[in-house]
């Protein structure tokens, strides 16, 4: 599904949902900007292939976690902006608990301090 330098395909697919929801929690955004942000935040470790992002966004939209709207950008062209719905905001909480549970368990096994809670 994704082309990635570091993460495995499965892991990228699994993490796309919490990543997208959390990015949109910071405000509405559009496909190109989301990819740039993920690349920047992960220090290049998570590289999403551009065209494959949209099916994931569309699935989240169908699940009611995000909404979208065509809007005119400052360039004069229209872009499809995505933003979080109230269900999406709730979903972040669940995702957060689950990912931290995995993170903490691994930290205990590897005897390292959890990076941040």
């Amino acid at each position, binding site marked *: 599904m994704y082309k990635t330098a570091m993460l495995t395909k499965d892991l990228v697919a699994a993490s796309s949902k919490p990543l997208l929801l959390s990015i949109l929690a910071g405000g509405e955004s559009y496909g190109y900007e989301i990819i740039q942000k993920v690349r920047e935040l992960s220090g290049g470790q998570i590289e999403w292939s*551009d*065209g494959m992002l949209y099916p994931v966004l569309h699935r989240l939209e169908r699940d009611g976690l995000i909404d*979208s709207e065509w809007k005119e950008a400052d360039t004069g*062209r229209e872009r*499809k902006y995505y933003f979080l*719905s109230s269900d999406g905001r709730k979903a972040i909480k669940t995702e957060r608990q689950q990912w931290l549970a995995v993170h903490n368990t691994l930290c205990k096994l590897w005897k390292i301090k959890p990076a941040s809670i």
Partner: protein
Amino acid sequence: MAGRSQHPVQIMENQTRFNLNAAVESWRQELAAQPNLASDDRRELETHLRDAVAGFQQRGLNDEESFWLARRRVGQPQQLGEEFVKADPAKVWRERAFWMAAGALTALFLFTTTMPLTAIIGYCFPSVGKIVDEPTLSIMLWVFQIIGITFLITRGNMNLQSPLLASLIKDRFHFAVMTISVLLAAETFCATIMFWVYVASRNVHGFNGGPFAYIGNFMFVSLALELVPVTILIWLLPAQNRKTPKRA
């Protein structure tokens, strides 16, 4: 591009100047050939491609380099189609049903406008009536209208993605009110013309109820038929445009 250092290859290429808009247009046609991509998906991918091109241009690449890199980033049209259809398998079919209903509505509407045309031709040129009978003339006129519109659309003289059409299908309520009032107005106009032409030619097909009964009957039958595709269209209007989305 002027003033930028040019490689020999670039100079050669610039002789047949790279046209960014033409390149994007041909890429768009490649996408359009993918049966699995809905028009909204294609539009979204195109804005993405344009954003990516602009990103590369800002980093100092020329139009052609930016285009090819952006194109590679976005991915192969066929692969995109496969991924998109996985996310929402029914989407493409909803869109097809939408355009089929739109086609049916257009055809029905043209059939309505054909009738007064036939009546006027029959009245003004009685000699035509000796060559073809009225039903044949109707069907001929109808087919001419359909061919004419198809021709205009394929020639690009009628743009299906015009802002006017986009604003018409922006939301269900807008669409329903606009469509039904246009249909009502057109039907009334057509029925009135037909009635007076038939009265003038003393040929009201055994209709004794007067103009209002005649017009009412004509409108009832045409509207009943046209309401079927209209209902389908209202039902299938894109979900994201149905209402102003509530923000969390």
